[in-house]
């Protein structure tokens, strides 16, 4: 359970910021992206962990990269076939999961040293931690920026008639960074041991 809150990859390790800024405009995209990262981190940790005793030490990063890319391309192809609209919306960011530090970081730090099942769980949990932050950020961005959730209208039309307007700033990446900053702030004020002296 550690990676979901106490050791969350985004808010504590501050990894994977780039994609979390880009795909959190809408809940749907954030949800699919979170799920994809979960699957990729889980499965690639699992596979690398199974091969851990046979991987030549000198090329271990390359082997990890090959495994991760395999998973990412598979996820991308599956999304293209079964969820085309979302794939288009996520565009390059699915491919960029390869460069997401969370994936490689977990394989290096955990997958290479542990048995397959714990590695799988570790990968899944880290992916879930990432997904959770994505969904929280997307929740605020979508409801403030577009007045919708999962594409469904939440803020009633009468608000707009009364002069309420969607906040265009929230749609843009800088606001996502500020939101993530706020989440990190909240977490650090709860978890005192994270504060540097």
């Amino acid at each position, binding site marked *: 359970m550690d990676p979901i809150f106490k050791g969350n990859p985004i808010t504590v390790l501050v990894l994977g910021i780039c994609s979390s800024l*880009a795909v959190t405009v809408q809940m749907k995209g954030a949800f699919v992206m979170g799920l994809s990262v979960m699957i990729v981190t889980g499965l690639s940790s699992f596979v690398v962990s199974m091969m851990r*005793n*046979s*991987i*030549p*030490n*000198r*090329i271990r990063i*390359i*082997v990890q990269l*090959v*495994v991760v*890319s*395999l998973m990412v*391309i*598979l996820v991308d*192809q*599956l999304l*293209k*076939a*079964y969820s*085309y*609209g979302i794939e*288009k919306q996520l*565009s*390059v960011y699915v491919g960029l999961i390869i460069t997401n530090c969370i994936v490689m970081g977990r394989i290096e730090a955990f997958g290479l040293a542990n048995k397959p099942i714990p590695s799988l769980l570790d990968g899944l949990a880290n992916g879930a931690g990432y997904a959770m932050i994505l969904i929280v950020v997307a929740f605020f961005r979508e409801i403030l920026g577009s007045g919708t959730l999962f*594409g469904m209208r939440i803020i009633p039309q009468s608000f707009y008639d009364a002069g309420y307007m969607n906040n265009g700033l929230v*749609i*843009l990446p800088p606001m996502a960074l500020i939101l993530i900053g706020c989440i990190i702030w909240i977490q650090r004020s709860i978890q005192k041991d994270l504060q540097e002296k």
Partner: protein
Amino acid sequence: MNTNGNFYTIIYSTIIVVLVAAILAYASLALKPKQDANVKAETISQMLTAAKYFDKATLEAMGNDKILEEYVKDINKALIINAEGEVIDSLDKAKSEIYTESKLKAQNNLMKSGKKEDLRLPVFIFGKGGKQVIVIPCYGTGLWGPVWGYLAFADDMKTFVGAYFDHESETPGLGAKIKDDPSFRAEFEGKTADFSSSRIFSIVKGGAPAGQANAIDAITGATMTSRGLNAAIEQWLEFYKPYFTAAKPAEKAAADSCAKAATDSLAKAAIDSTAVITE
């Protein structure tokens, strides 16, 4: 076993790479038909959106099969013309044969390399609700990658009914507005392509002059994308010009003779009425 020897390392990496390649090749082949169907439905939904038959979101909710059904129902004719504007072939309506992005790219390459005689340009004539809408594609380069789209004309062969654009990698929030911002698409509505002018249609940075019918405003902060899209539209309209202008005289003649008949009968009625008065 020594897992750090050179020989072991080379063999190991070779096996891994071949294995991964095999898995990916299989996945790609197995999923190809499904992906192609998605691309096709997406392209059709872009055309239907350009023709203003549907909202893009409505089409997305409809699913692939229904989109194809709608296409077969709405399309009148899908023709292929050459650079002289002559109809040389037609696309299979029932199979909803269309031009996807890759096919547009091939045509664009032919235009660029000057092989005009090899061009096979598609013209989609929709007829939903008795009103004819002519949809043609365009393709060009934006700032980061290709941009393409569909222009829909009313049956006077020059007035825009609507348009829809797509892109591969334009900047989100700026260049990507050609696709995401409905108000940019809406600018096309009611504008005209002026085939007699040297500039058929233009997207003007800093705002189109008021009252100019063949120009619209460019997107703020997306100068290069706007320029690329403008070049794409102009280039493709240039190649469609023979078809569009050739179709016009016939229609104009029909309209003229119609008008003539009307004035004739009016004049006759006037004569009759004077005759009545003199009696």
